[in-house]
């Protein structure tokens, strides 16, 4: 990077911010100068238009267009080929199966671990530090996490000393070193471990807050009834945090469906580890199979759809109450 490059970059940022400020300033100026007649209407347009226009150009229209592209073959005619490919080609089917495995395992395990950990450290000394340690992966990029775990799974051939922690443990116990990331189907589970490692902290933080929100009287009453800790946990704590549990599970499910960076960084989807989001990128932007990529995006959307509908219903009920 030369000094000129750096100057160019700084100049871009400064100019970008300045132009943006000027546009917003102009907009506000016109909102204030709106004609007396229909003033409220003009003001509304001024406040809403930027966001709505951007969303229409950048999300709504592209999503509609992607759906259209999914039904076109390479010569631009309507066909079901992309979807037929998805459900008949072994590699594509494997991608779908992997995605299902991810979505089944990551949310449940991460939530279970997060809940257990939250209960274990509840009211212990140094709770903050316990939390920070497990929560930290949440701030790390998936790419960084991928590198961290590739190092754990590193394999050295033959009699050389293992530098990856997992193989060092295996050989230390007298076993043979394994090429973890090349061994199908084990490798998919090892990638899932990385996602669980990232998401557990999130589950723990949310559920810990929920546990602290349970009224002390309930626990106290249960204690007076002579329950043991396990009964208290299953009959008082879990019902008390049901709402948060649903939130955590759905949130992690959505994040897992879209998982891309981990697979990209660790195996690039080779050795039968690909998932829908990664395959979508590979097909659309690497193999120039826009139709197939779009079809995969549509599948991803369909998988998320039930959660969208559920949330919209919850939101509508909330807004009616207001």
């Amino acid at each position, binding site marked *: *990077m030369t000094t000129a490059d750096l100057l*160019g970059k700084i100049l871009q*940022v400064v100019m970008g*911010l300045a132009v943006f400020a000027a546009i917003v300033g102009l907009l*506000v100026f016109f909102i204030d100068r709106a004609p007396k007649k229909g003033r409220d209407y003009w003001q*509304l347009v*001024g*406040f*809403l238009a*930027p*966001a709505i226009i*951007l*969303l229409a*150009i*950048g*999300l709504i229209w592209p999503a509609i267009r*992607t*759906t259209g592209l999914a039904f076109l073959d390479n010569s631009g005619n309507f066909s079901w080929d992309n979807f037929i490919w998805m459900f008949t080609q072994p590699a594509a089917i494997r991608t779908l199966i992997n995605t299902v495995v991810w979505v089944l395992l990551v949310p449940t395990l991460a939530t279970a671990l997060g809940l257990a*950990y939250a*209960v*274990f450290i*509840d009211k*212990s000394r140094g709770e*903050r530090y316990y939390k920070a*340690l*497990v929560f*930290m*992966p949440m701030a*790390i990029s998936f*790419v*960084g996490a991928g*590198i961290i*775990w590739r*190092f754990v799974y590193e394999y050295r051939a033959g009699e050389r*000393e*293992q*530098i*990856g922690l997992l193989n060092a443990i295996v050989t230390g116990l007298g076993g043979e070193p394994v090429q973890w990331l090349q061994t199908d189907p084990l490798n998919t589970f090892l990638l899932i471990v990385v996602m669980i490692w990232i998401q557990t902290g999130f589950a723990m933080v*949310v559920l*810990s*807050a929920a546990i602290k929100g349970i009224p002390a009287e309930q626990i*106290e009453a249960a204690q007076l009834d002579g329950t043991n800790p396990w009964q208290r946990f299953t009959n008082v704590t879990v019902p008390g945090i049901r709402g*948060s549990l649903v*939130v955590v599970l759905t949130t992690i499910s*959505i*994040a897992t*469906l*879209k998982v*891309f*960076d981990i697979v990209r*960084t660790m195996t*690039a989807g080779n050795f039968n580890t690909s998932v829908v989001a990664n395959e979508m990128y590979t097909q659309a*932007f690497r193999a120039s199979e826009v139709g197939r990529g779009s079809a995969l*995006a549509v599948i991803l959307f369909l998988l998320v759809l039930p*959660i*969208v509908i*559920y*949330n*919209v219903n919850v939101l509508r009920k*909330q807004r009616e109450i207001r």
Partner: protein
Amino acid sequence: MSSVAPVDLPTGEGRDDSSFEEAARDTKSSRIKRRLTSPWATAAAIAIAVVWTIPTFGLFISSFRPAELIQTTGWWTIFQNPGFTLDNYRDVLFSPSQSAPQLGAYFVNSLAIAIPATIFPLVIACMAAYAFAWIKFRGANVLFILVFALQIVPLQMALVPLLQFFSSWLRPLQVGLHNLIPIIPEQNYLPVWIAHTIFALPLAIFLLHNFIHEIPGDVIEAARVDGASHSQIFFRIVLPLAIPAIASFAIFQFLWVWNDLLVALIFSGGTQDVAPLTQRLAELVGSRGQDWQRLTAGAFVSLVVPLIVFFSLQRFFVRGLLAGSTKG
């Protein structure tokens, strides 16, 4: 968080300890020991904490070891094979050789992408959130629910057409800018900024609306009666009051953009001119997956900013995260 089944989670001001602050306990609960813990539970907690920390710790230790030691011995043998060096960092950051990672330029890119891509959506979303909360109009509900639903739509749905749109409409502008000011390369930050801004809007509007909606109506009404215009109310009353929500979202969005790989891969062009750290790292893994001395140091260069933000602004980050965990 509220973006998925907005339940009433204790994430508001002053009544949560999701920010790891020990909440003040009422005397009743401190009187009874309602800990479910036992020595076993404590042991399990310590085990989990250790297992969760070791991978990162191992990489961190390795990043300060000489290359030949990294390649031949495990990092846990640091005491048998001592060695400390800053060469790995010097190599990835400042090495002039073309084959080196040259992360310096990419680090600047990450910052140059993340700062505007945090500010733009914040301002636009604040305005939209204000309109949804305090300007009455027909169809407000339907429009708001549409915006809400958009935050769960996978990015993958929008990538291909948006890229086509940029290459036909934004490209001429970028070339024109380059001809006007040669110091700015043809590949510039515009597409990445715009993409990140658009993708951030649904969540930002939803979050800020929830907050702005809670501002007492009499304050707004009184200002209206005094003849204040909407923009005056927005700048003088609403924005100052919404600072906590703005801070939460800003931190969440900053980390999101800093850590993003997908948007960068598609809209940055992948050159030193625009590509962020994450993209460069992913490339290094692909092409030089065995250069552990570079990967370890490189990974930590990319982690340093998120970790600083995380440890210093944990509170805000948690709140932003709870509110915006379904983004992307």
